[in-house]
Each structure stands twice: as C-alpha cells, then as structure tokens.
C-alpha cells in the first residue's frame, strides 16, 4: 500500500480555527499519511513559538455567549472591550474540562509525527515576521513548493 498524502493550507490565526489543521494532520499522520501544512497570512500565527491565540465573538453569530448577551446586546455585546479575552478564557476552560487537547499539544504531536510545517515566505515578509519568533526547523517556501507536494496529494484542504 503506497503512502497517502494530505496537503493543507492554513490561513486563519484564531484559537478556534487553529484546531482543524492540527487535528486533521495529527490524525492523518497516525493513519499513515504523509502530511504537509502550508501556513499563510494569519495562519502564520499558528507557527509562533509563543502562541497567543484568541477566539473572537465579533462578527460570529454562531458563537454561544454567556448570559444570553448576544440576545440582549447583539453586535454591541460582542464588541465590548475585553470581551475577546473573556471569551478566550472561557473557551480554554471549557476545552480543558471536556478533555480537548491544547493547540500546543496538538502541534507538538504533529511535529513528533513528522508533519511538514512550511511557512509562506511572501506573507512572512509582508508582516515583517521574524524567523526567530517562529518554530525552529520550518521551511520557508512559495506556492510552487506547495504544488510540488499537493500535486499528487489524495486530500487537499483549504482552511
């Protein structure tokens, strides 16, 4: 049985959107897939040595809010200063209580399973990000390198 391949483009830099790429990659690796994640734009936040990911209720009507705030103060309730930190803390507590792995742990499991983490050089430059702030051992590549891997991938996802 030849090895299957999974290619993911990760473009989002919030706590909730950090989960799909790392959950799918670690699981695919456990199933024997060869996996690459191409991090671009806000997805680069997921590669920082010190993760500081937040979840935002702003512009997200699907997010459950405490005390029915979204019902009494739609839009404004979600825009109150500090709401992002409060919601992030609540989300992290709930995840811990429900046995959901942290992003740090899932990312570590991906690295252990030899998932290839590659950063988009163009957006690293665009945002003036320092390589020293990002994980060691990353590859910095462009779109052509993504296609070199994804061209014959069995599954390709844009997240």
């Amino acid at each position, binding site marked *: *049985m030849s090895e299957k391949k999974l290619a993911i483009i990760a473009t989002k830099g919030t706590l909730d959107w950090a989960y799909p790429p790392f*959950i799918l990659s*670690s*699981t695919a690796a*456990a*199933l*024997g897939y060869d996996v690459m994640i191409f991090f671009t734009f806000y997805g680069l936040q997921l590669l920082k040595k010190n993760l500081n990911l937040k979840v935002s209720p702003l512009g997200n009507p699907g997010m459950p809010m405490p005390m029915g705030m979204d019902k009494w103060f739609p839009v404004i309730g979600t825009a109150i200063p500090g709401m992002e930190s409060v919601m992030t803390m609540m989300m992290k507590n709930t995840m811990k209580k*429900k*046995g*959901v*792995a942290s992003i740090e742990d899932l990312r570590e*499991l991906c690295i252990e399973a030899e998932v290839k983490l590659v950063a988009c050089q163009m957006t690293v430059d665009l945002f003036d990000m320092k390589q020293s702030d990002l994980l060691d051992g990353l590859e910095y590549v462009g779109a052509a390198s993504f296609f070199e891997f994804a061209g014959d991938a069995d599954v390709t996802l844009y997240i």
Partner: protein
Amino acid sequence: MADFDQELDARGLNCPLPILRAKKAINGLESGQILRIIATDPGSVKDFEAFAKQTGNELMDSAENGGEFTFLMKKG
C-alpha cells in the same frame, strides 16, 4: 473479553487524542499483540473502526458499558 498485552486508559480524552494515543501504543507492540483501549468519547466507536480499516490493524472487539467504551485492537 479476550486477553490483551497492553492497556491504554483514554478516559476523559476527546478527539483526536484516543486515536493518537492508541497509535503510539500500537507502535510499541509486536505484530499479533493486542492493545485494550478504554475511552469515554462516544465518537471513538466509529473512529476506531475507521482507524483499523485504514491501518491494517484488527479491531477484534468493541463494547460499551455504562458510558465507557472498550476496544481490543490486534496489531497487524
């Protein structure tokens, strides 16, 4: 339930941790040895079936008892 060579307690863990821990444990076994997994994640029932199908390991048994799921996985 049949005998087993190693046991993995995945109670309280949520997707995808039971699968990832099981994979790690199976890596340490010899072919033909059996891993017993205990989990509380209801999603793990379908997931261990799918895991077995895709990895060539054999899911010998899958049972539920009072909210706990027990699996026997034989390394292929």
